């Protein structure tokens, strides 16, 4: 038991994540079944598939966000650097600090300034204060490729930025607590093409230090940005399964499974 309480051990960078036999339910309805997936450290892994295939559910299981939905439950294991995040005694709040999440719609805290949006995480977690905190905020904004655009307006409300800037602010906020893994659930679905490409370039820059999983509706995005791609599909019983997983290059030029081929060539259904 002492082992479990010791979680988290020292962060390993870049981190690796292994999903083993993962199934998830919303009440009585099963959303995903028996997913096995190895997320490579320091790489970008994309999860693609049609609506309702369970890709968002899958990533929400990787930082224990799925269970906050009433009646939701999970079976199987998710290993973060070898430790099961569903192990006994593991604090889900700590898991979420180590595995950050960025959502589809930019959601800066509406009453807070640009600075406060980024500072709130490390402050609440007691990671830094004073000059150290300021430094951390600047570093996070720089990492999110937003610093040059906001350095003169750190005190304006986060919500006054453009959509693309707000999303990078959310990425800066996620990075400020120094996570090992970054999950992004359709992070550019609400953005214009140029803001989208900026986020994609940003992810490429971040991947050396942060293991990244991106859920996307847009398979061209998966092709552009990721090193590995997982294709999910709901079967006749509406339960999502992993159909194919492999290097993005291979999945998009020579997929193994005919269902993957049908999906990526737009001949689905």
């Amino acid at each position, binding site marked *: 038991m002492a082992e479990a309480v010791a979680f988290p051990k020292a962060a390993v960078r870049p981190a690796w994540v292994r999903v083993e036999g993962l199934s998830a339910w919303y009440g009585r309805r099963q959303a995903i079944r028996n997913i096995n997936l190895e997320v490579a450290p320091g790489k970008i892994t994309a999860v693609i598939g049609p609506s309702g295939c369970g890709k968002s559910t899958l990533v929400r299981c990787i930082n224990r966000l799925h269970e906050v939905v009433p009646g939701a439950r999970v079976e199987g294991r998710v290993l973060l650097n070898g430790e099961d995040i569903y192990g006994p005694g593991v604090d889900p709040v700590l898991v979420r600090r180590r595995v950050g999440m960025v959502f589809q719609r930019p959601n800066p805290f509406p009453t807070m300034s640009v600075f406060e949006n980024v500072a709130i995480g490390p402050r609440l977690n007691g990671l830094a204060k004073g000059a150290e905190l300021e430094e951390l905020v600047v570093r996070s904004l720089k990492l999110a*490729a937003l610093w040059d655009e906001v350095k003169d307006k750190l005190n304006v409300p986060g919500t006054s930025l453009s959509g693309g800037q707000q999303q990078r602010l959310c990425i800066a906020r996620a990075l400020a607590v120094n996570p090992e893994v970054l999950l992004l659930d359709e992070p550019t679905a609400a953005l214009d093409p*140029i803001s989208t*490409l*900026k986020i*994609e*370039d940003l992810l*490429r820059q971040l991947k050396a230090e942060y293991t990244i999983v991106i859920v996307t509706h847009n398979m*061209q995005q998966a*092709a*552009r*940005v990721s090193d590995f791609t997982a294709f999910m599909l709901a079967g006749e019983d509406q339960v999502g399964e992993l159909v194919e997983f492999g290097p*993005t*290059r291979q999945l*998009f*030029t020579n997929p193994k499974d005919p269902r993957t081929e049908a999906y990526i060539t737009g001949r689905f259904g």
Partner: protein
Amino acid sequence: MTTRVALEEGLRALEDGVVELASMVDKAIERSVEALKRLDQEEAKKVIRDDLLINKKRFEIEEQAIELIATQQPMARDLRRIIAILNIIVDLERMADHAEGIAKIVLMHQDKPLLKPLIDIPRMADKARDMLRRSIDAFIRRDAEAAYKIAAEDDEVDALYDQVYRELLTYMLQDPRTIDRATWLLWVAHNLERIADRVTNICERVIYDVTGRMEEINVSKY
């Protein structure tokens, strides 16, 4: 912040690949003609062996290009660039086959000496190689003007080929015993003439890359 970093890097890698392949092909042409001058069988065998490396390089570039199309959705000038590259590498690879053809003619000579000292054949080779190098340079610089000019120079190679042909005919008419060796040299000249034609193809691709127009320029008389 620049966007499309992955696409830009991919395009640069493809361009580097084209330059490297062209340099391998240029060397193959040079070495095949040098081997012919000295009837150096070992060197000729080496040219034939090294052709495998050229084929391999071509497939490597082709795979990279396919990957870039599949993953980066190139459009407009980026798409034209990749399509141009896919065509250029085929021409380069076929040029190397012509060099290999010359090397095989060296092997055919076995113990027989050259029919005559080589004069116009090395000139054809020099001209074709010069056109090749400049066409690749035009491709890298996206210089359509230069491409038109280089393609026009194919006429010079054709003229040299005419000259070689007429000269070899006189040998064959004078002494039918020279027909085999004269024919071999004619094949060499033909290989070089074809190499220059393929430079013209590369020039067409440069023009397509820059302007988006597909046109056949300077149709060779052969």
